């Protein structure tokens, strides 16, 4: 069991926790946190699993860098949306208030 493999398993744990949070939490910002947690988990798995023999592998590191940027973009977009949503509806969750037209 190399150290990088340890990272991989840590990543697995993070994925599980993140998923649980993503499913259960209702406050949108918390959901977003949970998503980011899961994301980090995925990145850990990606890097850790790839260089389990110990020698560094640049490719997954590059991939993870790209992944991080994408995740940040997504998070930023989500925050903007959530904030505007809060501003317009005063809500922090997705459940519909009675006055909204229900889908």
């Amino acid at each position, binding site marked *: 069991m190399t150290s990088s493999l340890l990272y*991989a398993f840590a990543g697995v744990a993070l*994925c599980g926790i993140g998923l649980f949070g*993503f499913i259960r939490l209702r406050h*949108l910002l918390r*959901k977003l946190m949970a*998503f980011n947690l*899961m*994301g980090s988990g*995925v990145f850990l*798995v*990606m890097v850790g*699993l*790839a260089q*389990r023999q110990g020698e560094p592998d640049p*490719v*997954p590191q590059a*991939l993870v860098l*790209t*992944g991080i940027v*994408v995740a940040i*973009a*997504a998070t930023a*977009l*989500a925050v903007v*949306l*959530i904030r*505007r*949503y809060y501003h*317009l*509806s005063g*809500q922090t969750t*997705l459940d*519909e208030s009675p006055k*909204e*037209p229900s*889908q």
Partner: protein
Amino acid sequence: MTLWLMAGLLFTPLAWAVLTLLMDFRKGRVVTWLGMLVQLLVSLGLWAVVAGDGGFHYALGGWQAPLGIELRVDGLAVTFVLLTALVAAACGWHASIYLDPAKSWHRYFWPLYWFLWAGLNAVWLGGDLFNLYVGLELISLSAVGLVALGGQAAALRAAIRYLLAALLGSLAYLLGVALIYGQSGSLSLAGIARLTEQSGGDPGLAFALMLMMFGLALKTALFPLHRWLPPAHGIAKSPVSALLSALVVKASFYIAARLWLELGDELGSYALAQGMGLLGGTAVIWGSWRAFLQPKLKQVVAYSSVAQIGYLFLLFPLTWGASEAVSMQAQQGITLQVISHALAKAAMFLAAGNLIMSVGSNRVEALAGVSRFLPFSLFSFGLAGVSLMGLPPSGGFAAKWLLLQASLGSGQWWWLVVLLLGGLLSAGYVFRIYRASFVEDSDIDHFYHPPRSLEVIPMILALLSLGLGLAAESVLSIMALPFEEGGGV
């Protein structure tokens, strides 16, 4: 030549995204028209090239896989590229007249629109698992941006829900990629396929495949993961809804199908295949039923997308462990279904937009008497409906026919029920709209007449989807073309 076509295909949308970002709505509109023309020509050219002398792999930056990213340019890919060019151009054209230039935020429609188009092309041509992931994100984020554009609380709620679903989906997919890379050390789909063929099935990879399938199914809104779709597609501006329903959901399905066809035999299982098919079948029934109940016109169309997407997932059971011929029939049927649904659904949303615009209400009952005032848009809506019901000679019918043959050929008769019942149920909600439009005793007698061009666009799309059935043979022939192997290793 090919180089230029590829460059044009990948470069134009991105470049136009930048250009239109720097302009206001009106200028952006003019520039966009030019870009559409370029895209159409380039896509057509590439299609002609592939139709002429077969598909090929295209190594970006001159770096072969597995080091670099290779694009897979085969018959299927160019068919979808061409389809995208058609539908996206139509929607863009419609939007350029439909959207109100006075609203300051509409200027941001064009860049998002072009990024979406770029993402779609990237996905159709992508042959590299991670690159596909980036392409998917490009699509999702621009789509969410379009849904939320200038919207109010309800629109934002839909957009957020859409974004969260999309993000979860792509994470699941990415996790699968991570596992596959850890196992095979490569990201090129072709290469991985060859490896798995040599090494055979593997539990780790099987789990990875399941993860990816889940993620992609979530992004494709497969029942029961469809809850995010109707609000998003229903509340967006009509041209946007058209783009989303016609193309965006297809992108994630396309990746799922590619994975399945390359890796399914080794890594898939009968249970997984049947399970996907079962969910698809349920989606057909449930989606049609919900569509029948919706009070709002665009909600009806949106739920019908849920149902129509269900058909696509019959690909999995019908190709798993099936004979070459049957599997081919199934693939052709699904391809036709994708194309015809894209055309029909785009037509339907655009027509729905026109109808709503003219009666000033988005409810179904409001259509009473519209058949007297707006026959043209209504007629486009109806023709599109024919294709959704799978009645001849539409593309939807040809697709249904091939799927019937495939399910008979593979002895999986239970899909017949889905196919036939689904057709009848869709007739249920389509005829509900017709019916509403034939009602004569309507109290409202003032109808706003949208510009002619707004009415022409959905008609063209609807006619295409209707005529597709007659040309099915020639459309499908390009899929069977020879394909030069690549993918490194």
